[in-house]
């Protein structure tokens, strides 16, 4: 339900963007591969996760800076080989222990493009984000659940990457990058779920064709692309 609310907030944010500003508003969609780091990797889940994605909406406030919001999701899973565990009451339990962690993070996000309004199709970028992270954690002993919890904690991230504008209009760009997610937890013996997300995706300009925004033709006729005007 919280995820739905977060998606709703992003939709509302997009809807509130004035039509004239939509030329400078972009939406990014990234597939991401999550790699547990540090204590998360050493004590709970060491396997990388191919089950992740993120979306963001950003507004270009000047040629070098964009601000907006982002929603990211990653599903971590680890099945451990059967092992015998000594319990505090003296009993021994042999079980295949499975740990499952889902992270859904909603963040305010800022991006910096060092090349600014440069017309190059290839643009490096740096991102910073801070917000809230909903962590769902479950642990199974065999088919029997021993833990099933949900917590909300702060989260922050920093990342870098490159984007490459496609086509003559340059309305879409491919993106490739990585973000380090700092996600403290301090629950159930889990200090954090810090991870590195390698991302690949696309970025679109949110347009408002025929409703007051600049027309496709206007952009098309520009002889020299200006990425700032297009939200890049």
């Amino acid at each position, binding site marked *: 339900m919280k995820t739905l609310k977060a998606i709703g907030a992003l*939709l509302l944010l997009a809807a509130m963007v004035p039509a004239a500003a939509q030329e400078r508003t972009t*939406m990014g969609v990234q597939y991401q591969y999550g790699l547990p780091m540090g204590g998360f990797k050493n004590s709970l889940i060491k396997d990388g996760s191919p089950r992740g994605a993120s979306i963001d909406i950003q507004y270009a406030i000047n040629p070098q800076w964009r601000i907006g919001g982002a929603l990211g999701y990653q599903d971590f899973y680890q099945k451990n080989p059967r092992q015998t565990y000594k319990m505090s009451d003296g*009993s021994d339990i042999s079980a*295949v222990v499975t740990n499952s962690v889902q992270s859904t993070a909603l963040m305010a996000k800022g991006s910096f493009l060092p090349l600014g309004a440069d017309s190059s199709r290839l643009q490096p970028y740096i991102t910073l984000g801070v917000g809230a992270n909903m962590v769902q954690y479950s642990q199974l002993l065999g088919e029997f*659940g021993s833990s099933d919890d949900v917590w909300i904690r702060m989260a922050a991230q920093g990342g870098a990457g490159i984007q490459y504008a496609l086509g003559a209009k340059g309305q879409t760009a491919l993106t490739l990058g990585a973000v380090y997610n700092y996600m403290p937890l301090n629950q159930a013996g889990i200090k954090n779920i810090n991870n590195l997300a390698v991302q690949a995706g696309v970025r679109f300009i949110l347009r408002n064709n025929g409703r007051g925004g600049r027309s496709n033709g206007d952009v098309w006729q520009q002889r020299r692309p200006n990425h700032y005007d297009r939200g890049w």
Partner: protein
Amino acid sequence: MKPIRILFALMASVFLVQGCKKDPIKNLDTEERRIYITNQDETANFASYNTFSIAENVVVVDGNNSQQQLTPADQAYLDAFRAAMESRGYTQVSKTASPDLGVQVSRIIRTSTGIMSVPDYFGYWDPFYWGSGFGSGFGGWGAPPFWSTTTYQVREGMLAFDIIDLKNATTNNNLKVIWNGMIRGAGLGNASSAPSQVSQLFEQSAYLRK
């Protein structure tokens, strides 16, 4: 493509990704679904016992009711346990030959769902088989106090193996369960996997030997 369409497409993508969450239970095979729990009376000296006898039937416990049964799977578990005891140096004798240890195998059936606390099971002995002078059934004064409050969600029945101290029953004036093993999860009625399941109980109970 209009922005609203893009947004709906993205929303659908997020739902799709959420649906891709790996289901932990679906990724377990039958063997992996089972858990094996063993416990011992810390005061028992397992090397001090020489002989054992094992009940010919499995006691099926359903709530407060119990009855004896012997399905092919039950027989497989009894045979496997007998072989495991002998591999640990104990000698099987008949019940009338004053065995040091009695072995009772029980199938616990729970018809209700919910959370079952491990202390619900304190070991079981059949008074009609081992003698009625020392109480019977769940708990009683012979119940070992070694269970904690750990809880597990019960989805189906479990198999319980109890080793009872018959050698010191008169001295102690009670029948004492000195070792208990439980198997819970999927595939409990599978005769072919009975030996490996029983083997796991003994593997994690290295102290259980003559």
